[in-house]
């Protein structure tokens, strides 16, 4: 088709390639999301007809302490969760790449992720029970002071973060491990001849070349953490003393307990915007669309 410019031809191919995914996106994401934006301007309790209230929901939201508290807790949770999770995941991945190729280690590291969120939460709920749990009995065994963990407003969110780190560390490691495979081995050979230490190789070769995957992990794990719900629903239900009532928990509560779907939608839209802004920033800063390998 010589009458078509290269760009047009590319576009044809491009859309053919994304066609199935695009359908899925439009049907199951774009349309509900668009609807949610619409609903956010209404008062809707799920069961009866919504009616238009303009920006009321957004105004309410700005004045709602619980909303701000939820956002703050979510942000705090992300800060507790991500650095450690990513660092541990990275360490594991590098260890699996450079230390041992053992399939057992690989499988073992991913095992926690095989359990569903809810199950993981239940298991830890049990183990972290201050009186009956095995963790405190280990803690006492080592002569330390038993803690209340999920029951203590000061520790609850940290405990939830720890649970999630435990579950997701292996996932992170898997993602990074896949990323490590793209780094040509000869770079390490070359570096090792230059007398570069393992740690320096990590810093100067692995990390920079892992960038595309790193952006991915950062974006998905941060936005994923922002959406933490299951674990909290199972372990603390937002308590004690609201110390774990993170934003999504609050949104779900509004939607399905308080039947305030309009308000929940407004908060969802806002949350979505915040995450999107973060994502765009992160992807821009880390040049997500470029790879140094090309």
């Amino acid at each position: 088709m010589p009458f078509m410019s290269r760009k047009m031809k590319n576009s044809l191919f491009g859309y053919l390639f994304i066609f199935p995914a695009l359908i899925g996106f439009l049907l199951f994401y774009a349309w509900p999301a668009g609807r949610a934006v619409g609903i956010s301007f209404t008062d809707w309790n799920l069961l009866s007809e919504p009616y238009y209230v303009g920006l009321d929901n957004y105004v309410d939201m700005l004045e709602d302490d619980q909303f701000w508290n939820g956002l703050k807790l979510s942000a705090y949770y992300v800060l507790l969760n991500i650095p450690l999770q990513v660092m541990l995941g990275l360490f594991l991945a590098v260890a699996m790449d450079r230390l041992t190729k053992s399939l057992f280690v690989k499988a073992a590291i991913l095992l926690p992720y095989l359990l569903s969120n809810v199950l993981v939460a239940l298991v830890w709920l049990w183990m972290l029970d201050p009186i009956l749990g095995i963790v405190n009995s280990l803690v006492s065994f080592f002569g330390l002071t038993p803690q209340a963990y999920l029951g203590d407003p000061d520790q609850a969110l940290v405990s939830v973060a720890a649970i999630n780190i435990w579950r997701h560390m292996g996932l992170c490691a898997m993602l990074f491990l896949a990323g490590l495979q793209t780094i040509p081995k000869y770079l390490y050979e070359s570096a090792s001849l230059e007398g570069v230490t393992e740690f320096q190789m990590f810093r100067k070769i692995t990390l920079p070349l892992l960038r595309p995957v790193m952006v991915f992990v950062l974006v998905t794990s941060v936005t994923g953490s922002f959406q933490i719900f299951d674990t909290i629903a199972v372990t603390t239900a937002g308590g004690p003393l609201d110390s774990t009532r993170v934003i999504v928990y609050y949104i779900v509560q509004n939607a399905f307990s308080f039947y305030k779907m309009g308000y929940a939608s407004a908060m969802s839209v806002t949350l979505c915007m915040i995450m999107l802004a973060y994502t765009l920033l992160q992807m821009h800063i880390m040049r997500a669309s470029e790879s140094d390998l090309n």
Partner: protein
Amino acid sequence: MTPARCVAWLVLITMLVVTLFPLLFVAKTSFVPAGELYTTSTQLLPDNPTLSNYKKIFGLLSTEESIAAGGSGANINITTSMINSVIFTGIIVIVQTFNCALAAYAFARIPFYGSKLLFGAFVASMMIPSVVTLIPNFVLMRDLGLLNSMLGMVAPFFLMHGFAVFFLRQFFISLPKDIEEAAQLDGANSFMIFFKIALPLSWAPLMTVATLTTINMWNEFLWPFLIATDDSMKTLPVALQSFKSQTPQGQPDWGGLMAATVVATIPTIIMLFFFGRRIVESVQFTGGK
């Protein structure tokens, strides 16, 4: 072994212990008879190991026996739900991974109108809270008459997932360009390059995504729960949810829950060992100089 490596090994082993310990706890609890759950909760081994929890899972106990063993009286057809789960997960993993790989490749390599915007939108799809999508999607399934059907169960998942698209694209951008250029000169069109070059070179990320999708879908509860109301359609997590809390204040049937977990996890563990090798056995990019 250098000291750095020794330290690394130590840390790795510590992390392995921390990782595995709770799982041992799960396994242990699955062998604890009701009534000893709380008295042995700080022990590593059960005092009187029993298989009754497993019998419960496999429906080998009558309802009354099962209730007496601290369980619920729910009837579980584990074979059916296991088969359903395999079909459900299988369809999604295969179709979704394929669709996402296609899309990811286009986003990485084909400069088409609107690609940046659409990619952004796909990434953003991961950030839409499920509160927002649940009901519209459910209504859509109802309107399409897909309630209680396998198609309805897989519908929101099998066409695309932002996670997979994003992940795979990040790999496709790292593929050596000159190899694809060589393929272009060899007369391959974009589809051929995708199938013959990009896909085979991306075994590691593809397997990683497939593995993660398998795990997620194997555990997916809410959607199949809502769609599949028929016993014959239930997936494993839906069938096993009766081991979770029954009443607002009640405790789950811990022993049953843990046994169910062990049983439900075994297929994924097998899969992990099966695919694990592929995951890291990637092609090194040594086609060049």
